[in-house]
């Protein structure tokens, strides 16, 4: 893999991201060429593998009053209180049906002005750890969907599936929950 290719890939992704500063970290992580793919409904998504802290089986979180519907509550991650966000409710606006394959992916989120936080996302199932070439990341088109436009940093075509690469730092900014 030569450097120019890598840079081009980085460039492509960064022109796409809504906020270059804030997502700078996540771009770096996608440049590592490995991501974790998961399924929500019919769609495939991916998050940078370097940000994944842990994957847990679904468990019912303790509800948090006064938060958005898609914040399912908090769970105990080895002594830390970690919020859990249901991506299906956030993206598809339909309540999750929790099935056998449902898991919580614990992600480390970077913030510009404060410490890292850990946030869990609920997804229907995991696909695989995807190995890819940075040049294969395609620029996301304009979705006419504010959620997608803001939080999808690129597309990755693997076999029959198209993975949406998520900008998790912006997506999981707890201040807006």
């Amino acid at each position, binding site marked *: 893999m030569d450097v120019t290719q890598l840079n081009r890939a980085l460039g492509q992704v960064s022109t796409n991201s809504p906020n270059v500063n804030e997502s700078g970290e996540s771009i770096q992580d996608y440049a590592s060429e490995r991501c974790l793919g998961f399924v929500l409904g019919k769609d495939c998504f991916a998050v940078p593998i370097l940000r994944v802290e842990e994957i847990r089986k679904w468990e019912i*979180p*303790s*509800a*948090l*009053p*006064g*938060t958005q519907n898609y914040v399912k*509550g*908090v*769970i*105990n991650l080895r*002594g*830390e*209180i*970690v*919020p859990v966000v249901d991506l299906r409710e956030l993206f598809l606006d339909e309540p999750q049906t929790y099935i056998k394959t449902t898991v919580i992916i614990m992600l480390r989120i970077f913030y510009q002005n404060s*410490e890292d*936080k*850990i*946030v869990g996302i609920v997804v229907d199932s995991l696909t695989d750890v995807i190995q890819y070439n940075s040049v294969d990341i395609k620029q996301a088109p304009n979705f006419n969907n504010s959620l997608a436009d803001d939080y999808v940093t690129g597309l990755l075509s693997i076999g029959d599936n198209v993975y949406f690469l998520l900008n998790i730092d912006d997506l999981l900014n*707890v*201040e807006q*929950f």
Partner: protein
Amino acid sequence: MSIDLSQFHQIFFEESFEGLDVMEQQLVQLEPGSEDLESINTIFRAAHSIKGGSGTFGFQEVADFTHVVESLLDEMRTGERELTQEALDLLLITVDVLRAMLTALQEELPIDKEAVKACHDKLINFEKASSDGTAIGASASSESSQPESLDSESSSGGEQEQSQTWEIIFKPYSNILVTGNEPTRMFRELETLGQLKATVDLSKLPVFISLEPENLFLSWTLVLESDCDKEDIDEVFEWVLDDCDLSISLLSQEKKLTSEQPEVSASEANTSEKDKEVTEEEKFPVEKSLSSRETVSDKKIDATNTASSASKKVISTRSIRVDIAKVDELINRVGELVITQSMLAELGETITPESIEKLRTGLSGLEQNTRELQESVMSIRMLPISFAFNRFPRLVKDVSRQLEKEVELVIKGETTELDKTVMEQISDPLVHIVRNSLDHGFELPDERLENGKERCGTLTLDAYHKGGEIVIEIIDDGRGLNRDRILEKALSKGLISINDELTDEQVWQLIFEPGFSTAEAVSDLSGRGVGMDVVKRNIATLGGSVDMFSTEGKGTRIMIRLPLTLAILDGQLVRVGKEIFIVPLMAMVESLELDHKAIKTFGKKGEMYQLREQFIPLLNLQQELGMVSNNSNNEKLLLVVESDGLQHGFIIDDLLTQQQVVVKSLDANFKTIPGISGATILGNGRVALIVDVAGFVKRCRKIHENNDRMKTFT
């Protein structure tokens, strides 16, 4: 009363360095011409705290220097002065100088007066140049609060040449000669670096009969004038480091030392003369003259002082001073725990029906051990509040003398224990309050006599436990708060409008607004209107509250309530729907079975409960927490809680156990939620939220008000 203030020095330095960091950060962010009042206020407050602290601890140079900075900042804050790039640069330099001063003080080294003087002059010139636009020439400070001494003494310091003076205290162990090292050779090498003066300490020299020729009983204090680095000196001693006690410190010019303590200058000069004698004698130590003995012993004291300060030089990290009894207790507890553990382990080897009973006893023993262990661990963080109170006698004495007032300080309840983190953060607010009280609260002695009071006023500091809180009271018998003057001031500052009708309580709270000060003259002490807002903010961040009570002519009472500790809480577990919540035990009054007939409603909303003789508002936790109720008519319980002196009824589904819970913050991975003070992890590994009763009631009221208002308008 003599109290060792030096025990607080470390805290003061830590706080000041923090303050300087804040100043620097804000200064760097500020743009010229910016009107970011918040930033300027922050810088100003930091400077003010440093000034206050250094004044308290007798670091007069720092206090004087900061005073100038503060005046400058104050003008910027009030908009009298524009924020130019020049000003910003100057302030940044000032921060550096202050940091150098404090570092020097912390390491007990002399302050670099030239740098301070230079910066001080710049500040004065700057202030003059732009405030009245006149020539810069008049640099001699005309401000009354400026000590002349600083100027005069430093001007003499200005003539010094560049070379530095190093003081080396060299105490070889007696076996150094055996290891093949020869001190004189090292001194010769030092001499190549610059001018060397050596003073020998003969105090350890035994009488001739018991003299061991192979042992060395001498130690030296060497003064080296050279422009060399510390490394160069280190190199000379490289081979003997393990065979001696060595301390190398940078000494400023001797002349400066002399001017710093003019009253001892004569003897000092004397000493340096004798130093020379000793220098010559150094090579022939046995031929010591009796006349120099005196000098030597003087020097020896010097040397030991410096040596002890050298050992302190290791900048301490955050530390805690613990009573040895507490540590012993902790060790005992751990010992018991180990015994219980081994007993349980043995039982676990062979479990028979008979051993079940033993196992049960063992487990209850374990439970008790754990609780005791937890208590002793927590008690380590607890310090008597005298740590915060002990700095006040001196402060009160100095300040009241300065103001020509007569005030007696009474301290009560100084053994009341308080968590260290809480203590650290409450000290500053207390200083502000006491200073304010001395400055504004107390009248002059004659005025007191006229008003039929005793000449000497009384300031009382009191601390006691009440419920799960600690209460600190600051009571003075001064003139009290003047309602009209506060209102007038608040009007002129635009804090209130002319039509506002305020209760006394509300008026007193105005004092805690930023920038509020009723003092006519800005003094060294208070009256710049910083302080009280900081006081309130600091206390609020600790989860406490501050109340003021005042009667004009009689005095003022300030009451601070603080949580005892921030880490552990006695809680009642309650079930609401399917969730478990924790209500702090100290907020609970009672719990009883809900009698549906006692619920009275206003329309469909506004439920209240007739509890014996009184009516209390009802809050249905299940609804308030946004949970779908499953079976509303089931037997429910009523939990009566109290906050801010008002009772409320919470409707809950079940009461579970009471237990101590470890408070974990939601902020760490999430954000603060109103009405919830934190979370904890239960025995089964699940998370339970801790209800902040006062916040929760407030939150519910707000939600209902909003809803009702919406309804009225639609």
